């Protein structure tokens, strides 16, 4: 049904984005210091890059999923990874078309899924606030941190706006899936224009509100909360580094390929 298809466009967008949007939860992973979680993400990234056989990259992917199970976000992470699988197939096909061996193409495809999964694991378990603290801890410029964190924070808001705008335009008889290819692209204009306009209005309002609350009055504002590494954060971090070293040794020295 036409109306249903239109609904599916939005539902699909939400489905994909929900793989990166933080939700408050209680799990062993969520309770770690965000820097430890970032360390996990970096380690998984390195492992995914170093792993060079289909078995090895698959193991890295399984580790990502296992961590997600511990963090109670497996369902959403698998969702992101299965969406990524579409691109992974593309990577596989293109590599084979340009004459790369099959095994190597498979490694590249699974590696892509593992990297996206690892990154998504970090974003799914890290609140925008924690993200801000981590970025500040890296001594990134205040304005940059604020802009980045605000962008992350506003993704769900924009998704909600998009849904409401689509509802409003459908109620005026707009059928997005109707007509030929060009017409279908043109059908997005009544949705995109209000989406951009509301985003611009909102950013203006946010800027004024921030200024009224003395944003930028001091160069280095203090924080209400400070990150603190507890024993278990150090311990988990240390164990993960050890595992990384062992895995690297195995991947590079014991079972190298090529």
């Amino acid at each position, binding site marked *: 049904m*036409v*109306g249903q298809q239109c609904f599916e466009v939005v*539902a699909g967008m939400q489905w994909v984005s929900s793989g990166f949007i933080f939700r408050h939860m209680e799990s062993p992973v969520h309770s770690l210091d965000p820097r430890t979680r970032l360390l996990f993400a970096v380690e998984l990234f390195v492992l995914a890059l170093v792993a060079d056989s289909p078995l090895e990259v698959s193991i890295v992917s399984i580790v990502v999923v296992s961590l997600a199970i511990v963090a109670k976000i497996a369902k959403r992470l698998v969702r992101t990874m299965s969406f990524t699988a579409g691109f992974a197939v593309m990577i596989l096909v293109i590599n084979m078309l340009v004459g790369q061996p099959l095994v190597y193409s498979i490694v590249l495809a699974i590696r892509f899924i593992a990297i996206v999964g690892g990154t998504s694991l970090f974003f799914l378990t890290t609140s925008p606030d924690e993200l801000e603290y981590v970025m500040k801890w890296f001594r990134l410029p205040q304005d940059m941190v604020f802009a980045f964190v605000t962008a992350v924070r506003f993704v769900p808001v924009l998704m909600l706006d998009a849904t*409401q705008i689509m509802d409003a335009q*459908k*109620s005026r008889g707009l*059928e997005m899936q109707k007509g030929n290819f060009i017409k279908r692209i043109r059908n997005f*204009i*009544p949705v995109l224009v209000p989406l951009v306009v509301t985003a611009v209005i909102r950013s203006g309002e946010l800027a004024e509100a921030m200024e009224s609350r003395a944003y930028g009055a001091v160069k280095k504002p203090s924080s209400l909360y400070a990150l603190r590494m507890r024993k278990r954060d150090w311990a988990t971090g240390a164990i993960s580094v050890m595992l990384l070293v062992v895995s690297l040794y195995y991947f590079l020295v014991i079972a190298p390929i090529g």
Partner: protein
Amino acid sequence: MIKIESVTFKHQNGTVALQNVSLEIRTGEATAIVGENGAGKTTLVKHLNGLIKPTEGKVTVFDLDTKQTTVAQLARKVGVVFQNPDHQLFSETVSDEIAFGLRNFGFPESVIKKRLEWALEFFGLTEYRDSSPMMLSGGEKKRLCLAIVLAWDPEVIVLDEPTVGQDLVQKEKLREVIKMLLLRGKTVILVSHDMEFVWSLQPRVIVMAKGRVVADGAAAEVFSRPEVVGEANLMKPQLLELSVHLKNPPQKPFADIYEARQWLVSSVSR
């Protein structure tokens, strides 16, 4: 006529927004849906033009099952005026904005021209016909959104929070528009937190709380039930309070401020 039969709606994340709601809205009736934020008012209204399909139960609009009908087909009969004008204005001119819906519904150009002129004139927007809708003031944007929907002359008009950000004069004008629509036999459904405005129309009032209908009846009857007012966290309309607390209360509570004024003036001069 709109029939809502045992409708339950669950969001994807499992939260229940509507729970076993059954209602019948008759043609030509003025109905107000009131209740706290999150009570399910907007969700209910979105069922009427098929934006949301019921998880369980059935909604029929003029004998069309909303599950079997597209939003565009239903929207021709049920016009919804949404709360936030910025969520729908996108055209280069006010005229184009009004004509957009008419074109979507396939009206011939000669009819579009006529309807457009009527809508511009009726809502006092003629002088802005070639201006950008983005340049209008908040109140004008609200009026434009109403003009957009009334231009295609739907049988049922749903107004979601039409009085937000409107001054008294605009509210009074809106009240007149609604009365005119009712005189022309249209069905008007109003979703509002503005109890004074709701009261001034003396509609059938449907009170919602936690996804259920907790009361349904004439305004005076519903607002006089303390358990309903308490459960839905409503404020009684001031005119009703006044009518009840007078030493010699009138036979019927004051329907509007004019009635109250007349009564008070005559009782003082007595």
